């Protein structure tokens, strides 16, 4: 059973927020990137 729904949509949503706030986790989308901008 999986609750992640549409994985691509969720990853895109998290990608938007990843470099705009200080918290991560709970999404299965941990990754890199310097977020320089």
């Amino acid at each position: 059973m999986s609750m992640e729904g549409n994985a691509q949509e969720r990853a895109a949503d998290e990608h938007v927020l990843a470099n705009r706030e200080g918290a991560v986790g709970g999404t299965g989308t941990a990754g890199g990137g310097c977020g320089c901008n």
Partner: protein
Amino acid sequence: MRLQLRASASRLAVAGVVVASVQLAGGAASAAEVSAAQRATLFLEPSNVSGNKGITVFHPQTDVSGTFGSGVGIAAGYAVDIVSGATPRVFGVTADSAGRPVDAVSGATKFSDTRHQVHGGLSYSRTTADVSASYSYGWESDYRSHAVTVTTRSDLLDHIFTAGLSYTHNFDRVCDANNQQTGGDPLSRAALPSSEHCFQSDPAVTTRKLAIDAIEPSLTWAATPRLMLQGGGTLQILDGFQANPYRRVELGSGGRRPQETLPTLRQRYALFLRAAYAMPKIRAAVHAAARAYRDTWAVEAATVELTAQQYLTRFLLWGVRGRAHAQRGANFYRDAQDYRLYGPIGKYWTGDRELSPMRNYLVGAKLAYLRIPEAGQKSFVSELEIALKWEALFYDLDSKFAPNSDRSYATIWQLAISARF
């Protein structure tokens, strides 16, 4: 409704009332299936300062996957971030004609960059368990990233519980100015002027490593045929260069503007709870999520999210999303005015908004067209979805001297087309 279930047939039958996409995982009985998805996201974060452009990010991505009757699956994808805009290279304050500090935004520098990422993966599914492994490579002018992920999932107690575990390791490299001549004095460090000579044999630049390990266990409980609950956590350890190599921070009133300096080790912890509730009578579903976070830089955060989706007709789905996030800043963070008045706290300093105390709020709406043939009806395309989403993200910072205080909101547009054959 993408409340995907990989569960027993009885639960699938109930959830199928509101579920537009149901994936039956593995087993020799599964037929071959191919999925393709194209998604484009446009992120617009304008500046309220005349002459500053803010930030624009265009993010198209393509994903293709296939599963075969043997339970073996294969996936591949490509994504791009095209970033442009203007952002200050110095986090500091300027003085007006009377000598009083004014807005933190000074001298925004125009830039543009493109980040590419390719990924591929293999999976193997059986009736009660699956395992997958994937690899991704990302590259841009000043950054290289290799990442491997292994994920496993097992159904327990007749599919009532599902235990999941995911591990990711990043082997990243970051371009930086070669500050060897500073003798290790962080106050003398110069920022990287541009990415022009990165990953070349230019002695003015160097490459720094960043290793990231992340592990995410979770447990999902099918509490009732309509209610699913999930709890889990994330542990992420970052070891290496984590600063923005271009950014400088103004410290004290003497005009010193050294490169941003951050600790090289960061441990991040998150606990989360999620719930999904189906309402077949009104053909709707609600998802709720909450997350608590803290790390060894003393950033503490709480995030809550609520989404609701409902079928308007057999083919038309609409949804709304709300999200709120609040965080405390890192223990070495100060706003630009305090860095100028009091200097740094210890040996680290930053001008990064994500390390500042702040709140943000997101609201959005989505409209999707879904085409799924009737049961028994043969069709080359077994599922088609076209979705348009709009969201607005509002920032609430603690002071006008906080990083990016000129950018108070962002709008996000997303268009997606996906098909299953």
